[in-house]
C-alpha cells in the first residue's frame, strides 16, 4: 500500500511530464492543468491504497482516459455552441492562434535576456516541442510513454488499449517523423 509520502513523491515525479503530455494533446495549458489535477485526484481517490509499483501504469491509464473525456466534452460543447451561431468555431480558431503566437513571443522574450548559446538551445528545445506536438496523436502517445515515461511495450499497449505490435509501429513511425523533421530544420541532437 502506498503511504501518503510515497504517493506524494510519485505525483511530484510525474506531474510536470503529465502536464506536458496533456498540453501536447489538448494544446491549452489551462485545460492541461485541469486534466492533470483530475487524473491525480482520481488516482488518489480510487487507487490510493495500491502498491507504489502499480501507480505509474495506473496514472498513465487515468491520464489518457481523462484526456479522452476532455475531447468528448469539447465535442459536445462545440456542437451546442455551433448550433447557437457558430461562435465556438471562431473561439477555437482564436485560441489555437493565440497559443502558438504566445509560445513564440515568450521564447523570444526569454531568449533576448540570455546568452547566444542559451537562445540557440532554447530554440532547439522549442522546435522539438513543436515537432512532438505535430505528431499524430497515437504516435505521440506511444513515443512519450515508451521513451519519456519509461514504460515498457506491454505497459504502453495496456495504457493505449492496443497491441504491443501497434505500440512498436507507432514508436518507430514517430521516431522517423521526428528525425526527418529535425533534419529538415538543420537540428542535430
Amino acid at each position: 500500500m502506498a503511504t501518503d509520502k510515497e504517493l506524494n513523491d510519485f505525483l511530484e515525479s510525474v506531474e510536470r511530464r503529465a502536464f506536458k503530455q496533456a498540453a501536447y494533446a489538448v494544446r491549452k495549458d489551462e485545460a492541461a492543468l485541469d486534466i492533470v489535477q483530475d487524473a491525480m485526484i482520481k488516482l488518489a481517490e480510487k487507487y490510493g491504497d495500491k502498491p507504489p509499483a502499480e501507480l505509474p501504469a495506473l496514472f498513465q491509464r487515468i491520464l489518457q482516459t481523462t484526456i479522452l473525456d476532455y475531447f468528448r466534452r469539447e465535442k459536445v460543447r462545440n456542437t451546442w455552441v455551433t448550433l447557437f451561431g457558430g461562435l465556438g468555431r471562431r473561439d477555437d480558431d482564436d485560441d489555437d492562434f493565440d497559443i502558438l503566437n504566445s509560445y513564440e513571443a515568450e521564447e523570444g522574450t526569454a531568449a533576448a535576456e540570455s546568452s547566444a548559446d542559451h537562445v540557440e538551445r532554447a530554440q532547439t528545445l522549442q522546435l522539438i516541442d513543436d515537432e512532438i506536438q505535430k505528431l499524430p496523436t497515437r504516435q505521440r502517445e506511444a513515443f512519450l510513454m515508451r521513451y519519456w515515461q519509461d514504460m515498457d511495450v506491454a505497459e504502453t499497449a495496456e495504457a493505449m488499449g492496443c497491441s504491443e505490435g501497434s505500440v512498436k509501429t507507432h514508436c518507430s513511425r514517430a521516431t522517423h517523423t521526428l528525425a526527418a523533421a529535425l533534419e529538415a530544420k538543420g537540428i542535430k541532437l
Partner: protein
Amino acid sequence: MKTDDINLAYKIRHALNENLDNLPASTTERLAAARAAALARKKADAPVRAAAQAGRQRPSFELRSVFAMPWLGRVAVIAPLVAMVAGLAGIYQAEHEQHAGDLAELDAAVLSDDLPLTAYTDSGFNAYLVQQQQQPQRAQ
C-alpha cells in the same frame, strides 16, 4: 528499431526533460496545489486497517475477561444475562399455557355442543348447511 533511432529517441527525451525546467512558476504552483488536493482525497486505507486491527485485538465480548473481573463486576455482568434468560423462559411458558388453554376451550365447546361430532364428517350434513345458507340469500 535501429540503434540510431533509439539514440535519437533518448536524445529527444533528454531535450524534453530539459524543457520541463522551463515551465512557468504559475504552472508548477498549480501542479503542486493539484497534488495537495489529490493527497487530501486519498483513499483512506490506514484508518480502516487500524480499526480492523483494534477489533481483532479486543473483541467486543470475551468470556475469560468476565472471570478475571472482581466478584461485584462479575455479578453486574452475569445478573442481567440470567434475568434475560429467565424472562425469555417465562414468556415462552406463558405463551405455551395460553395456547393450551385456547385449545381446551375449543375442545370443550365442540364436545358440549348439541351437534354430535360425527356430523362434521358427514358430507350430507355439509350439503344441508350450504343449502341453508343459500336459502336466506335467495329470500332477500
